[in-house]
């Protein structure tokens, strides 16, 4: 799978200095602009511009294709399924991934079945934007990383942008995709990452990964906000003479199995780091795919994640659970030394 599987360019490109949140906004603006079938809705996203300010200005500029909804996730997701069946291309927001669980039926039993059960006579090109993860002080019901739940749902594409450029590119790819796509953002990233973002480029096809660092001693697969911690750990270890290859798998479905397997085969060691709970996390799938491919590893694969816990609110407690950059570099060093 190529890094950027592109389809023909649609609009003129330009580069602007944007944060992650602004890049999301720019992607939405572009999609609303170039796809008349798009609708954008969710709680507080229109007139107020979103609780994180990410959807600001879109109601003003696109009128009633952008609207606020009642606090009714089943109605939001269900209506997106129905509107998509009838030719619209809805982009809906679930404010926190945790809230998707009040309406998980509409994702698993409804959205994901539309195309398959109708043999493609109906399709459901819905984009669900949400955000997840731990942030200081957030309670147990606002802190989970739940990508693994969605990755066990065939029919649903899933991606998790970390850079502002990917926040833009992946969302544009999602909205243009004829499949339902879940885009998992991260609220701690919205105000960050200010830097040049290329806008208006060719629409990518779901898939691909980002080689964030080349290395030879071990392959570390990661995604989402954890990427920053892994890169920091990799920098630390580089100073100690340990060379990590860091793969950010921005698309988790489709997953770039071949690239990950090839890298692990080259380095002979595989670690997966994610913010989600370890047991049943998608890290298990990554390990299982590499193991299933028969890659010879000189050290057993390592998984780092939340150590199977609920998420406490106090930052001091979270620090006792969630691996930080220091924990990661230490764990990886010890692990490689054990080889």
């Amino acid at each position, binding site marked *: 799978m190529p890094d950027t599987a592109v389809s023909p360019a649609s609009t003129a490109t330009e580069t602007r200095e944007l944060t992650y949140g602004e890049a999301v906004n720019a992607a939405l603006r572009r999609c609303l602009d170039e796809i008349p079938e798009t609708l954008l809705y969710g709680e507080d996203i229109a007139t107020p511009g979103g609780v994180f300010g990410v959807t600001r200005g879109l109601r003003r500029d696109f009128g009633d294709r952008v609207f606020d909804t009642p606090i009714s996730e*089943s109605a939001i997701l*269900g*209506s*997106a399924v129905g509107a998509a069946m*009838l030719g619209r291309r809805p982009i809906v927001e679930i404010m926190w991934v945790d809230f998707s669980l009040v309406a998980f039926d*509409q994702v698993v039993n*409804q959205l994901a079945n539309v195309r398959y059960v109708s043999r493609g006579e109906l399709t459901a090109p819905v984009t669900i934007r949400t955000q997840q993860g731990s942030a200081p002080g957030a309670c147990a019901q606002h802190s989970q990383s739940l990508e693994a739940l969605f990755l066990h749902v*065939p*029919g649903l594409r899933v991606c998790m942008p970390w850079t502002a450029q990917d926040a833009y590119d992946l969302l544009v790819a999602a909205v243009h995709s004829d499949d339902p796509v879940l885009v998992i953002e991260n609220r701690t990233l919205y105000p960050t990452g200010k830097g040049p973002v290329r806008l208006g480029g060719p629409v990518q096809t779901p898939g691909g990964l980002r080689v964030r660092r080349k290395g030879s001693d071990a392959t570390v697969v990661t995604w989402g906000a954890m990427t920053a911690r892994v890169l920091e750990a990799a920098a630390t270890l580089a100073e100690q003479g340990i060379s990590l290859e860091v793969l950010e798998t921005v698309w988790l479905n489709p997953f770039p199995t071949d690239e990950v397997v090839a890298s692990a085969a080259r380095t002979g060691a595989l670690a997966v780091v994610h913010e989600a709970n370890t047991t049943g996390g998608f890290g298990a799938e990554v390990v299982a795919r590499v193991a299933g491919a028969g890659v010879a590893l000189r050290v057993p694969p390592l998984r780092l994640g939340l150590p199977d816990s609920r998420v406490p609110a106090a930052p001091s407690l979270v620090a006792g659970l969630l691996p930080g950059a220091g924990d990661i570099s230490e764990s990886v060093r010890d692990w490689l030394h054990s080889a």
Partner: protein
Amino acid sequence: MTATDAAAGSATATALADLRQVWRMRAFEERVRELRLAGDAVGSIHLGIGQEGVAVGASGLIGPDDAVFATYRGHSWAIACGVEPEALFAEILGRATGVNGGRGGSAHLTAPGHGFFGENSIVGAGAPIACGAALAGRHDGTDRVALTVFGDGAMNQGAVHEAMNFAAAFSLPVVFLCENNSWSELTPIDEMVGQPELFRRAAGYGMPGERIDGNDPEQVRDRLGDAFEVAREGGGPTLVEAMTQRLVGHYIGDADQYRRPGERERDAENEPVALLTRRLRDAGTSDDDIAGAERAAREEMESASAAALAAPLADPTTAKEHLYA
């Protein structure tokens, strides 16, 4: 012939057409039951026998841009939308020629080409989806009405509540049609609510609600027609509670031994075949015409099901297709 006579004659003609359509649905279902009991069809199958009056009354109201969302008990609704019985039988029989090529089965029939956006086997889940179909109509230049049909038991599901409020808040052209057959599977609805007049919930959402006789296609046509008209003209959603009864078990195989004293007798008297037959007899329609409605329906379903049975089973090598674009 006086104007009154003409009106009466036309009413009678309508009643006879209704009876024919009721019989088509019932003959379809009875044939399905035979196929299930013979083992040609497998799995849980929910028949609409007794409830046909609602679908028959609705059928003329559904326009080409409209979208219908039914439940697992939706065979009659597919027929009401004009789907060919052979393709429905084929689907229920797991044939390659079924409306979903065997992927849907009895409980997930879909025929979007006929405005039948499908059955749904999660209680209540079709209601929010219908809101989306109505929403699409706001933006695609049609005057689409979305009709979502569900049972009395579904009224207690969160998704239905959210859908009703969503539609009411945004004045969406959705008609919420509750087929109240007084049973939610094996449990009586009146023991599962504090207010058994379910249509009364509509007021809380700021939308009109009413209870009608679902056994009388004429009344359904009239009152549900008003709801369609209001919706089509931008007046927003309506909740219609159509009182009906299922004359059979919840699914084929249900021993159906939970009925209350007097219920079966009352149901037998009220159900649409009995009601329409009485009406036609009173209007002087011949026994032959009445019997002809049943006969024609049985013949149609006999040959449709025979054709479906002759079709090949769904091909296992295609089972992985159509998951993604």
